[in-house]
C-alpha cells in the first residue's frame, strides 16, 4: 500500500488523480466525523465532499510535520463545526433552532423500536449540540472515529491530560443534559 506522503508527493508533481487514493482511504473516517456533527446521512456526505475539496486546495499548506490523517481530521472537525454554526445561524433567521431536522424513517416501518431510535437520535443531537466546541470535537473524535486519547490530542493540538479532562467533562455534561431532557419530556 502506497504511503500517504508518497501520494501527496505525486499530487504535488501534478498527478491529480492520485488524490482519489487518499479520498478512498479516508472517506469513511471523515464521513463518521461529519455524522458526529450533523447527524444526517446526506448532509454528512455533502460535508465530507467539501472537506476533501478544501483539503486538496490547501494541500500546499501541509508540511508533513504530523501524519496526513491527523491534519485531515483536524480540517474535518473544524469544517464540520463551522458548517453546524452556519446552519444554526440560518435556522435562527428562519425562526427555528435548527435541531429539528427530520429523520428519514419509512412510515410503514415505523415500529416502536424505530420510534425509540428516532427519539434517541434527537436526544443525542441535542445533548451533543449543547456541548462547548472543544468538548464536542473531543467527543466526536473519540466516539465516532474511535481515536485513542493520544490521537485526539494530536488532532486537537492539546496535551493528553487536557483531552482526558475534555472527554470527562463532555460525558458529564451530556449525562446531565440527557437527564434534564428526559425529565422535561416526562
Amino acid at each position: 500500500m502506497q504511503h500517504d506522503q508518497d501520494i501527496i508527493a505525486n499530487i504535488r508533481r501534478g498527478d491529480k488523480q492520485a488524490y482519489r487514493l487518499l479520498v478512498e482511504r479516508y472517506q469513511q473516517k471523515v464521513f463518521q466525523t461529519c455524522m458526529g456533527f450533523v447527524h444526517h446521512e446526506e448532509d454528512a456526505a455533502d460535508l465530507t465532499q467539501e472537506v476533501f475539496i478544501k483539503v486538496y486546495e490547501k494541500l500546499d499548506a501541509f508540511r508533513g510535520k504530523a501524519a496526513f490523517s491527523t491534519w485531515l481530521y483536524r480540517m474535518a472537525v473544524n469544517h464540520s463545526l463551522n458548517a453546524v454554526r452556519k446552519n444554526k445561524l440560518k435556522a435562527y433567521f428562519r425562526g427555528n433552532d435548527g435541531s429539528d431536522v427530520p429523520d428519514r424513517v419509512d412510515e410503514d416501518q415505523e415500529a416502536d423500536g424505530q420510534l425509540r431510535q428516532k427519539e434517541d437520535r434527537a436526544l443525542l443531537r441535542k445533548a451533543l449540540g449543547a456541548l462547548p466546541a472543544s468538548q464536542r470535537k473531543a467527543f466526536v473524535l473519540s466516539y465516532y472515529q474511535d481515536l485513542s486519547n493520544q490521537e485526539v490530542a494530536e488532532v486537537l493540538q492539546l496535551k493528553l491530560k487536557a483531552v482526558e479532562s475534555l472527554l470527562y467533562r463532555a460525558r458529564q455534561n451530556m449525562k446531565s443534559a440527557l437527564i434534564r431532557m428526559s425529565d422535561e419530556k416526562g
Partner: protein
Amino acid sequence: MKKDKNQEEALWQRMEAAVAREKAQQVSPYLATRVMARLDDNPSPGFVWAPVLRSVAVLLALVFGFLSAHWSSDTQVGEHRALVEAYFENKQAGLSLEDSWLYSDLYEAE
C-alpha cells in the same frame, strides 16, 4: 438516588447505541468520484487569491479611511479665514473692516 443513577446509566447506554448506529452508516461509494469531478472543475492546488484580495481590499479601505480623517483634520479653518467667514455669515457688517471702507474718504469722493 440509586434510581437516578440507573436512569442515567440507561440513558447513556441508549446514547452509545445511537452513536454506534450513526457510525455504522456507510459513505456513498460514489463519493470519491464526486470529489474528483468537482476537482476537475477547480484550479489545481496552490495559492488561492480570493481571500488575499479580499483582505487587501479591506486593508486599503481602512488606510483610506484613516488618511481621509487625517487630511480633514489638517484642513481646519485658520484664524484669518474664520474672521472673513464670521463677517459674511453673521452679517456683522459694523466691524472695523466695513467701517473703514464705507466711511473712508475714498468712498465719498466717488
